[in-house]
């Protein structure tokens, strides 16, 4: 008997309306672990290098991991993957809540969607059975309306729903996939891939217990977290992920006015602490998690924020707030509600609006371009209005719905300079001029700028924490980019890659030895931390090859110019990213990964990782390059 997975992967052909089931061997699960690993495998082996994100030949893969659904904190997540409409390369986002665990408990390890349905549909998965059902009546509805209608139609309040939202239907490239209304796989624009397939939702209902190899070991670990979480996460519980907003502002790393500044005079008004003392009415949780870091907020007029859509995370307070120069917490909460109701990534949306605001203030855009909207930094009403327009591709919103990179290219007139992105994906709310190796990680990330599979330098400046388990014993300055820091960056990308294969939460704070215990308890595998790091390394190589096949080269691993410009004021006045040190760090990372100086995995490295088959997917020109290295 296998533990941690069912041996059942659904393959849904939306063009034909058929559902098939595959049963990979245990070795497959142990190699890729689910989530990102599984998505990278399918996208690399089944989606050709010229397939567009909105082509029927693109795939949308919904993947929990081998730990998902087992009863412990952090095990409620799942990944969504496909070719990204933002980057044209590897796309993936992870979302929390309960949907991932419910899908796993419904007897499914993953679902591979292919083709395009002739009419809107949703997939209903219940205890091992799956059927495609008409979703015409759900098309054009908000995420909340869809959930209500599905609960009514299926006569079950306990269903869990993953859905694409109106933004996804409209192929908005900065759209998200929504789990349970208030949890989002925001990045990479996968809501639009889902919408392009006319797949409105995946509905899960599961009463099956994920098979666990050692219940006693798992219970012991789960109980430990229930008893000990306040020691390291009370602040997160009290104030949510925005617990650190004031810290970033004070240190000069809070993206402000489209990354022109790193400190915001209105920071106190939008901090996690202020949210707690003003509009917070409850705290929400994900599956089996005692920390409850999710916010539930409510306001009166004029915004009347609806609490069923949760409340803003740090990323949202930054992107819709300081990055747009907005200090109106209730307006930001409204923006969050609208993004959630329409299925928009709050980071991509906020940074795209901030881009347009800078263009407006510089005279590149005028009210003639913006449908009469006075799109200045600080105009909260304009921000809220733009979210509506982006989701519906209405007027000027149609341009920003393309994301800031494409919008800038269409606008021209030098607007490209103000689109803050990496590989076409908007930069999240962490400053490379504060966290310097994180900036290298932005450039190297297979999904474009991302903070979740990255290092946060500030966490290693005073102490090394769990990095001691990797043999890293000396703290390092946040602005240091030497090989010791690159080593730490590399280890972070490996472990976070593994997190995204298991698809468990990074915020819960499991120690390295506990992670090994969790994998052993759930799967029964004689497992080691070394193996876990190899899982992360494997997936970094697969996603690298996928992007190489799609035309990305080392020159695409770069930061937008803004980050090389020193801040003019604030705590980091005069600080910019050191171009030379950054480039050197990138090459050092390649070499530490066993890649060539052009960032190409060598055949030997792929064999070392047990994925020698992937050599066949290296494009001819780069394969030749590895032979010469």
């Amino acid at each position, binding site marked *: 008997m296998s533990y941690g997975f069912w041996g059942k992967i659904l393959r849904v052909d939306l063009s034909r309306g058929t559902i098939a089931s595959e049963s990979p061997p245990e070795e497959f699960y142990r190699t890729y672990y689910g989530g990102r690993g599984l998505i990278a495998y399918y996208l690399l082996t089944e989606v050709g290098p010229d397939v567009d994100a909105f082509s029927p030949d693109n795939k949308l893969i919904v993947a929990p991991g081998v730990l998902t659904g087992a009863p412990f904190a952090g095990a409620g997540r799942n990944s969504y993957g496909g070719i990204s409409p933002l980057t044209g390369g590897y796309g993936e986002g992870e979302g929390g809540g309960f949907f991932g665990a419910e899908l796993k408990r419904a007897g499914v390890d993953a679902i591979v969607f292919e083709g395009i349905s002739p009419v809107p549909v949703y997939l209903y998965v219940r205890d091992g059975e799956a059927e495609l059902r008409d979703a015409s009546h759900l098309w054009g509805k908000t995420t909340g309306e869809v959930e209500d209608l599905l609960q009514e139609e299926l006569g079950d309040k306990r269903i869990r729903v993953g859905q694409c939202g109106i933004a996804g239907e409209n192929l908005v490239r900065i759209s998200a996939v929504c789990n349970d209304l208030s949890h989002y796989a925001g990045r990479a624009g996968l809501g639009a891939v889902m919408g392009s397939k006319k797949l409105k939702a995946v509905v899960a209902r599961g009463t099956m217990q994920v098979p666990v190899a050692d219940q006693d070991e798992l219970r012991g670990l789960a109980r430990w977290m229930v008893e000990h979480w306040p020691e390291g996460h*009370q602040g997160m519980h009290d104030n949510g992920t925005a617990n650190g907003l004031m810290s970033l502002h004070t240190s000069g790393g809070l993206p402000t006015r489209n990354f022109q500044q790193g400190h915001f005079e209105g920071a106190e008004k939008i901090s996690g602490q202020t949210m707690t003392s003003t509009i917070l009415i409850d705290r929400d949780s994900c599956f089996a998690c005692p920390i409850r870091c999710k916010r539930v907020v409510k306001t009166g007029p004029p915004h009347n924020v609806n609490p069923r859509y949760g409340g803003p995370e740090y990323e949202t307070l930054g992107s819709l707030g300081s990055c747009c120069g907005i200090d109106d917490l209730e307006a930001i909460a409204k923006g969050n509600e609208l993004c959630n109701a329409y299925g928009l990534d709050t980071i991509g949306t906020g940074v795209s609006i901030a881009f347009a605001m800078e263009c407006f203030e510089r005279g590149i855009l005028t009210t003639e371009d913006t449908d009469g909207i006075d799109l200045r930094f600080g105009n909260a009403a304009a921000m809220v209005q733009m979210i509506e327009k982006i989701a519906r591709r209405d007027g000027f919103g149609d341009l920003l719905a393309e994301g800031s990179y494409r919008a800038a290219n269409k606008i021209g007139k030098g607007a490209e300079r103000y689109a803050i992105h990496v590989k076409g994906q908007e930069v999240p709310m962490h400053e490379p001029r504060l966290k310097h190796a994180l900036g290298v990680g932005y450039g190297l990330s297979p999904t474009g700028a991302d903070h979740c599979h990255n290092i946060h330098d500030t966490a290693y400046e005073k102490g090394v924490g769990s990095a001691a388990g990797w043999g890293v014993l000396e703290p390092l300055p946040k602005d240091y980019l030497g090989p010791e820091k690159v080593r730490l960056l590399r280890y972070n990308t490996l472990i976070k890659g593994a997190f995204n294969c298991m698809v468990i939460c990074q915020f819960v704070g499991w120690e390295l030895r506990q992670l090994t215990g969790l994998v052993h308890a759930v799967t029964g595998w004689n497992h080691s931390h070394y193996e876990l790091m190899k899982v992360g390394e494997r997936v970094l190589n697969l996603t690298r090859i996928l992007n190489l096949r799609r035309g990305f080269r080392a020159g695409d691993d770069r930061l937008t110019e803004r980050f090389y410009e020193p801040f003019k004021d604030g705590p980091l006045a005069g600080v910019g990213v050191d171009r030379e040190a950054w480039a050197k760090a990138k090459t050092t990372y390649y070499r530490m990964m066993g890649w060539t100086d052009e960032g190409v995995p060598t055949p030997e490295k792929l064999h070392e990782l047990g994925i020698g088959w992937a050599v066949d997917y290296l494009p001819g020109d780069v394969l030749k390059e590895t032979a010469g290295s």
Partner: protein
Amino acid sequence: MSSGSSKAPGARVRIRLFGELARFSGGRGYEFDWPLSEGQTTAGLLSEIGIPDSEVWMVAINGTRVETGARPRPGDEVMVFSPVGGG
């Protein structure tokens, strides 16, 4: 570090703890007033309160980052931050 300092009568600072530091406040929560000895440094204040230096990433007085040897004045707001990771 604060030994030998005399306390100016009624002199106090406002302490604000961020991140995961409230657990070292002795049950005072995230914000509280604290008596200020004459010439006391921020490091001395944190020692008096019982916040381990290893847990402190950054200190600010009235919103501006300072070194741990900085000396707050009565009525100042002393902000103390633990290391920040992702968000």
